[in-house]
């Protein structure tokens, strides 16, 4: 499944939350601190959920990932400054941040699965007109390098991870498990 599609469901809410925090009457460092909290909390929630879904697919539900990296600090600085530097490209940058977090979760789940002798498949597909960097990492992998899971701003490549349950039509059990 292409987990980046799930981030589309929260993008309008993220931009609305950023607008609430980005009150121009509040000092920039205070805005930045509160945006750090927003990006950290949402990023962590995305990471945990995407890892959990992948873990279910790969039959490694008893595991946890090491967590996302700390790029939410830089995101908060960019977002808090955007009311003075201009909001052009901010939405794409926020989407890329969330998609990269999802990609990290997928990468960590694949690595954990491989350590337990499960070998999920990773398929990176370029969509439409695509830059050279993305064309170079497109392909099907069972031992993908880290770059396969990375994205730049406005990257619409699909990064699909497929494990035992994907291949055997057992994904519908996820909802029943979590009900």
């Amino acid at each position, binding site marked *: *499944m292409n987990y980046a*599609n*799930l981030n589309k*469901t*929260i993008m309008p*809410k*993220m931009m*609305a*939350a950023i607008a*609430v*925090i980005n*009150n*121009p*009457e*509040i*000092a*920039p460092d*205070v805005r930045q601190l*509160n945006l750090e909290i*927003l990006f950290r*909390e*949402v990023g962590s*929630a*995305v990471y945990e*959920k995407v890892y959990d*879904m992948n873990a279910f*697919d790969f039959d490694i539900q008893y595991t946890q990932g090491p967590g996302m990296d700390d790029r939410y600090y830089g995101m908060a600085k960019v977002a*808090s*400054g955007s*009311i*003075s*530097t*201009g*909001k*052009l*490209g901010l939405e794409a940058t926020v989407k890329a941040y969330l998609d990269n977090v999802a990609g990290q979760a997928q990468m960590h789940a694949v690595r954990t699965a491989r350590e337990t002798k499960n070998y999920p498949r990773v398929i990176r597909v370029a969509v439409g007109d695509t830059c050279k960097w993305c064309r170079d990492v497109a392909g099907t992998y069972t031992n993908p390098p880290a770059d396969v899971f990375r994205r730049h701003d406005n990257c619409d490549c699909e990064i699909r991870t497929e494990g035992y349950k994907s291949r055997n039509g057992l*994904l*519908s059990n*996820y*909802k029943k498990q979590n009900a």
Partner: protein
Amino acid sequence: MATDNQSKYIADLVVLKTKEFKEVREILQSSGIVSESAELVEKAQSIAEITNVLTDMQASKFIDLLISLPEPSRGNTYSENRVNRAVSALDDIKETIGSWDFQ
């Protein structure tokens, strides 16, 4: 063209010295620093688009101008209403994430 260091410094200074992007445009336009690129500045939607059309000399003058400006008066505390809205927005986002399922 403005150097990378000048562009970054200008971006940091506008965050410190202005409350919104249209102020940046107004400050630059009224300064006379970029009279020949006035239309580009008028249409710019980000500080990066502005620094892309500045020469290093113009960027240097813009930096000096920004440094001379006083910081605007701003608060350090959000209103209770805004805090509640932010917390509610975050809870809503987390609930949506929690409901994600395979497609």
